[in-house]
């Protein structure tokens, strides 16, 4: 009896609250579920976007979910079940391409949905090259790059200054850690096999191109520890398990600057990637309106610049770059640690998302088959 009453009362309350909410904000839902990666990155989003937004819109509640690494599969499952519970999802560029292709992400009219830059440029121009498909709302530029230990006795004082140091086991003996995926590794292998940056994907497209890259990787295969989670390389470097390894630049920043480990960062042919939001397709109108309102706020020039206070990833807007300030706790200047900093961009790579979306399955099976042999 009591249970029924409580249920009834709650239902009535929710209903009334729903009506009240609908009236006070136009047709906007009062709550949102945002999906991100957890950890320091999600914390930076909460500080830079969500807290100011909730301050400006009291009464809005935001629920955070840490499922981004399986967002594609979960979104597909939700869509097949006809019950989309997420309102905004943080994904990497290539995943957004897949979601867009599958019709799981909503297509966006950039200039209409997003705020223009505070220098007056249109949203599309301001985001520039980070706009990689019709569904993807970019937030940050991150790069995958190498960190190395600065206290390796066997190196006799040599320090790596080129990405090809990973293949040079004579000068730089010791184990290396690489991601257990073909993407990025193949590009680096070909670069160090003498292929010019602009020809990388032409060579990969040729018969035997992938094999050539794998043959180069074969020369260090017994020296490699393969990682699958972003936290692996920082741990391996800190424990001295490997002497150099690839990971995301933000992770290296925290090993070097926050944990003060004897590790240094190598800015050479780092691979740029974008990370950003997608809005699930077919949201109900009230939830969609709330999300659009949030996204417009959270991706404006100031908010993107603010995020760099908490994590060393570069804002995706050109107009945000000059506003990047100091780290909120450490008080150090963040600009030199940004992947978007010109000094860090002497040599860099950008993944060809189209090539990878075509060849991912094929290359992945070749890579895995090479890996297990």
């Amino acid at each position: 009896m009591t249970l029924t009453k409580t249920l009834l009362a709650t239902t009535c309350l929710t209903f009334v609250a729903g009506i009240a909410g609908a009236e006070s904000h136009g047709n906007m839902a009062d709550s949102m579920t945002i999906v991100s990666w957890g950890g320091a990155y999600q914390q930076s989003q909460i500080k830079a976007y969500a807290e100011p937004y909730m301050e400006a819109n009291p009464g809005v509640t935001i629920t955070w979910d840490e499922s981004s690494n399986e967002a594609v599969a979960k979104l597909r499952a939700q869509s097949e079940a006809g019950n989309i519970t997420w309102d905004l999802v943080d994904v990497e560029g290539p995943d957004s391409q897949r979601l867009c292709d599958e019709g799981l992400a909503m297509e966006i009219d950039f200039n209409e949905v997003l705020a223009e830059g505070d220098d007056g440029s249109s949203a599309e121009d301001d985001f520039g090259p980070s706009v990689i498909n019709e569904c993807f709302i970019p937030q940050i530029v991150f790069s995958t790059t190498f960190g190395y230990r600065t206290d390796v006795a066997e190196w006799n004082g040599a320090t790596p200054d080129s990405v090809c140091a990973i293949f040079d086991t004579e000068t730089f003996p010791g184990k290396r850690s690489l991601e257990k995926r073909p993407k990025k590794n193949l590009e680096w292998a070909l670069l160090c096999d003498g292929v010019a940056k602009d020809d990388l994907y032409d060579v990969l497209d040729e018969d035997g191109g992938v094999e050539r890259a794998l043959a180069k990787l074969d020369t260090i295969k017994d020296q490699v520890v393969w990682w699958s989670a972003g936290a692996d390389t920082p741990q391996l470097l800190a424990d001295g398990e490997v002497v150099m390894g690839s990971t995301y630049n933000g992770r290296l920043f925290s090993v070097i600057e926050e944990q003060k480990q004897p590790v240094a960062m190598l800015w050479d042919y780092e691979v740029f990637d974008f990370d950003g939001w997608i809005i699930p397709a077919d949201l109900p109108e009230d939830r969609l309106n709330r999300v659009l309102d949030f996204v417009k706020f959270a991706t404006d020039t100031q908010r993107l610049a603010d995020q760099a206070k908490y994590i060393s990833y570069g804002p995706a807007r050109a107009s945000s770059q000059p506003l990047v300030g100091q780290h909120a706790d450490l008080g150090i200047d963040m600009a030199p640690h940004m992947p978007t900093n010109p000094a860090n961009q002497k040599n860099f790579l950008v993944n060809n998302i189209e090539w990878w979306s075509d060849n991912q399955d094929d290359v992945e099976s070749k890579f895995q088959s090479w890996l297990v042999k």
Partner: protein
Amino acid sequence: MTDTAATTATPEDTGPMLAADGTPLKRSLARALRAQKMRALALIAPLLIFVLLTFIAPIVDMLFRSVENQIVSDTLPRTTLALKDWDDSTGDLPGDDIFFAAYQDIFLAAEAKTHTRLGTRLNYEFTGVSSLFRKSGRGLDDIGEVYQDAFKDLDKDWDKGAPWVELMGSDDFVAEAQAWEKGDALPEFELRDGMADLLPLTAVAYEDFARFQRVEEEKSLLKEEPWTLVHTMLFRDLQAQDVSGYSGPRAEMLKAADALVDGGELPPLDVRTTFEKIDKDWMDVDVWETIKMYSPNYTNGYFLNAVDMQKTPDGPAWRDDDERIYGLLFKRTMFMSLVITFSCIALAYPVAFLLSNLPARTANLLMILVLLPFWTSLLVRTSAWKVMLQQQGVINDVLVWIGLVDDANRLVMINNQLGTIIAMTHILLPFMILPMYSVMSTIPQTYVRAAKSLGATNWTAFWRVYFPQSVPGIGAGSILVFILSIGYYITPEIVGGTTGTFISNRIAYHISSSLNWGLAAALGTILLAVVLILYWAYDKIVGIDNVKLGG
């Protein structure tokens, strides 16, 4: 009792035995039993339905994906139909009619945004189809734009929604469409009588357009100019059909367009060249072969992929050596699961023996030591093994410190098979200890004592008397551990490196990264079948009655 005896003695004399109400006893009994069964079934019905709905149905649905392939014929209905008659053994490209069918299908799919989904699906089978479909969805508008522009230049009305509705729609529909107001349900489109004969292709395309506007866009036809596809179809119809007899609404407009088309100034329709311009891959016979091969609603393609084979026009064939992986992984999964099971038996048997022979107080205390790790998070335990086993880890440090191992040649115990076996043996050990303990604690100690008093040595008493009675516990534990370990993927992913990963790691990859759920389902189905076969074999060899979880 006596009656029954009498009936069996002389059935032919008395006829069937009757119950009190006059029905034959047999039927009456059957009815009573049935009622009882139904009542019992009704009692468990909620649970049964719950299990069926939440447990069995999703699994069956997931496994079903390993053969399901409707997406190709759903997205390209005309093309797959037309391809049936195409002989792919000649090595010639399909004819113009198939290109024309593909134009219609892909155009419609692009409007509904399903072409990229199909591209992703076919890309699993043929590299490059994904971007091919994405480009084609964008590029096929070009074909009709020529005609759309030409008709528009001739008469502005060809570029508006209302004149088209008047031409194509029945009078009833025109009236309904005009009466429609925002917020009402949109009227269903109805074709004008005779239009299907007069302009057959245009009618079909326009009906598709009308359906799409009503269902997907929820917009009034009067406001929407038709797709370029409709203009192309109108051009084709006007080339082939005689419209001089038509006298309905917009007859003048139609006849003017007919005159324009008959004048021969418009470029002829050449779908094939447009396809070639969009991407030269369309001139690759293999692309069309792939579409044809995957046209049927059900496919064995996923299963072939799951055993390192592929569909070819000449039937299934092995994949190239450098792309084979699943056979190896299946074998490795089986082998390592067996190794893990046997190491669990070796470690768990003494522990369970000790536990069951100690006084209850001490046994319970020790049992907590077994269960404590069992209650700890899986990830914590796995990561702890990382700290222990890595080259700069605890074990290596100790070995170097006591001088057993040289600092330069530290042991490699992780990121390989050894790491997976050690970590998983530890993690699965409680599943072996618990059933063993529950069986051993029921073995009366008097048996061993009796054996000894009759002159058996300690070993004989154990091996001939105690051990056979503990076998059901080993059986139960082994089945648990083996089945759990072949499905494990977190631990192998973290400590397995490249040589210590299982088939489940690939399944997880296909579920969450590549989204190739069909292949994941096929791999899962094979795994399930292997388990069932092993279970059957176990039953034949050891006997499933010999498995005891307790008592």
